[in-house]
């Protein structure tokens, strides 16, 4: 049985019809055309599908879309403003934190949710925060560097916006 749900994604209101068994990741990608969140494993182990739901980073393959009725979601597409990359995206670019890029949207959203609550993280805290995200290319070094850099930037460390 289809049910109609209202969700706000990246600040925009949507009304979609979903089967209860449809995962959030499938609605984002297949119904709304937001293909930024990637599918790696679909069983909660890789983090490529990470989005922000109700202010916290979650794996969107581990949530049914029906559960999100009346709530707010932010995906990687929602970070850039007026064509300007978000400091996290810019830092990933500047530090070569992406190679094939498959893990990147999930990494950035995991870091985004983490930095919202921990604006002054230590290197160990950053590593702990991305423990749910797998990257098969970079060896993680540059990803940790990028998040460190973005944290400073977001604190107004070097330049303001």
């Amino acid at each position: 049985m289809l049910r109609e749900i209202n969700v706000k994604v990246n600040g925009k209101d949507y009304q979609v019809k979903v089967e209860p068994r449809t995962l959030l990741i499938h609605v984002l990608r297949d119904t709304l055309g937001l293909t930024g969140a990637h599918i790696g494993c679909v069983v909660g182990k890789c983090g490529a599908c990470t989005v922000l739901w109700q202010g916290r980073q979650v794996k969107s393959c581990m949530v049914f879309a029906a559960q999100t009725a009346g709530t707010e979601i932010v995906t990687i597409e929602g970070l850039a403003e007026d064509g300007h990359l978000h400091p996290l995206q810019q830092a990933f670019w500047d530090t070569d934190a992406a190679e094939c890029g498959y893990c990147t949207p999930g990494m950035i959203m995991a870091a985004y949710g983490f930095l919202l609550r921990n604006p002054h993280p230590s290197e160990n805290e950053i590593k702990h925060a991305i423990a749910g995200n797998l990257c098969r290319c970079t060896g993680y070094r540059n990803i940790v560097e990028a998040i460190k850099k973005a944290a400073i930037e977001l604190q107004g460390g070097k330049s303001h916006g």
Partner: protein
Amino acid sequence: MYPVAFDYLEPRTLQEAVELLEKWGENASILAGGQSLIPLMKLRIARPRYLIDLNRIPGLSYIREQDGCVHIGALTRHVEIEESSVVREKIPIMQEAVRVLADGQVRNLGTIGGAIAQADPAGDWGPVILALNARIKCLGPKGGREMEAMDFFTFAYTTALQPDEVVTEIAIPAPSAPRLGTYVKLERVSGDFAIVSVAVQIDRDKDGICRDIGIGLGGADDRPIKAVPVEALLRGQKLSPKAIDIAARRIEEIASPISDLRGSQEYKKEVLKVIFRRALERVIERASPTTGGSR
């Protein structure tokens, strides 16, 4: 990836949730954080016809201190325990444990009630609540009841809950020496379930005699277990190297781990001894005056 089709039900009160469970029985499952159930449904190992979502019921998520106990609502997320100042002050062992439980995304959704109802023999909350002598409160069609954590876990992924009962709260007596507890987990990779794990909480007098001790073991049997014989052995004793030796040997004797991808039974028994010793040494170190003494 799609599970078998189901009806999605959203009760607004606990009473309503229990009525739905009573009505649909074995054909229904409770959905809490979904971090164990959703993957099982996707793999079609779990095939509920009715999914009863607890998340629209207000008042199931809380951490409060009352009558010497910390009361944690069943729907409290792992992350809320991680961030709680009450837990930090009263039961720091829970914060030590939650930091090594799964990963940030899973901790944001998974709940303590769901984790104990799931009863994974290698889960992290089992050993901790066993060491702390927690009580589990649940509600069914005949009303509420309470169980000791020890009576709750009956087998791998199996609990003493009736099919029409919901866990509502975990009540944990606040330890008298909060700092003298530790959780040590051996895992293959960060965020995985434990190969084996040990939770220890002690209380001691000023002469270093162990007044009380709680020991919970993960990955040591077909369920999380409380090491009752070893607790009895150490109660009233000084935790000397010799006493620890004897206790570690006893731990090995009472353990009966399942051989699986995380290790053989022999291996798990061996490392359990090592991890147990490490846990005891850590609390003893915390209790020693040079590292700040016991509080």
